């Protein structure tokens, strides 16, 4: 199990490859990567991600451990960045390895649903108009937790 909260970027492809190689007895590898995309109204200059340093790693570790306990996983990886990110930059990734594709998929979706709504990160959009907007939590993200 690998969990990282970091300001610096990470190489998604290289991390995904290393994870797949390390778990090549497993059969099924799922990855998810989140990328900073433009604001709905356009004009995004940067995304600032604030977090709660004392709590973040602990929360991510608990979420990941719960996934490891609940599904039959060989390994799980979570990386989440904070700080100022440009459009197109990778914000975070998760990866799961299992003998069964269903477990690998479900665990990755679980991790994403919990990272969205239960890990202490807050996103702020910096727009070229000079305005800034805190991204509002979506009801659909809260509702997604009902599945688990």
């Amino acid at each position, binding site marked *: 199990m690998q969990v990282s909260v970091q300001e610096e970027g990470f190489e998604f492809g290289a991390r995904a490859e290393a994870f797949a190689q390390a778990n090549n007895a497993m059969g099924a590898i799922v990855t998810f990567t*989140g990328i900073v995309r433009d604001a709905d109204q356009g004009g995004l200059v940067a995304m600032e991600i*604030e977090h709660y340093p004392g709590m973040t790693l602990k929360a991510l570790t608990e979420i990941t451990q719960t996934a490891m306990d609940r599904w039959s996983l060989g390994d799980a990886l979570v990386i989440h960045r904070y700080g100022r990110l440009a459009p197109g930059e990778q914000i975070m990734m998760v990866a799961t390895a299992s003998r069964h594709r269903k477990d690998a998929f479900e665990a990755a979706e679980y991790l994403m649903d919990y990272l969205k709504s239960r*890990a202490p990160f*807050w996103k702020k959009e910096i727009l070229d108009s000079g305005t800034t907007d805190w991204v509002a939590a979506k009801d659909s993200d809260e509702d997604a937790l009902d599945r688990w």
Partner: protein
Amino acid sequence: MDVLYFAWVRERIGLPRERIETSATTVAGLVEELRAREDRYAAAFADLSALRVALDQELSSFDASLQGVREVAFFPPMTGG
């Protein structure tokens, strides 16, 4: 105890953390004290349904007890991922 604010709660109150001596026994009691302080606190805590609270870095609820708690954090719903 230490009280921490994040995201727009931090911006509205104007500081990221402060040390507070309180006799409140629950989070809701602490919120009442803070609201009574100044308008910026009243504004930040106007709608509790838009806020979340963590006690000693674990998500909690507004009716939770503050007994033994060293760190309280207030913030909007999280938007990670």
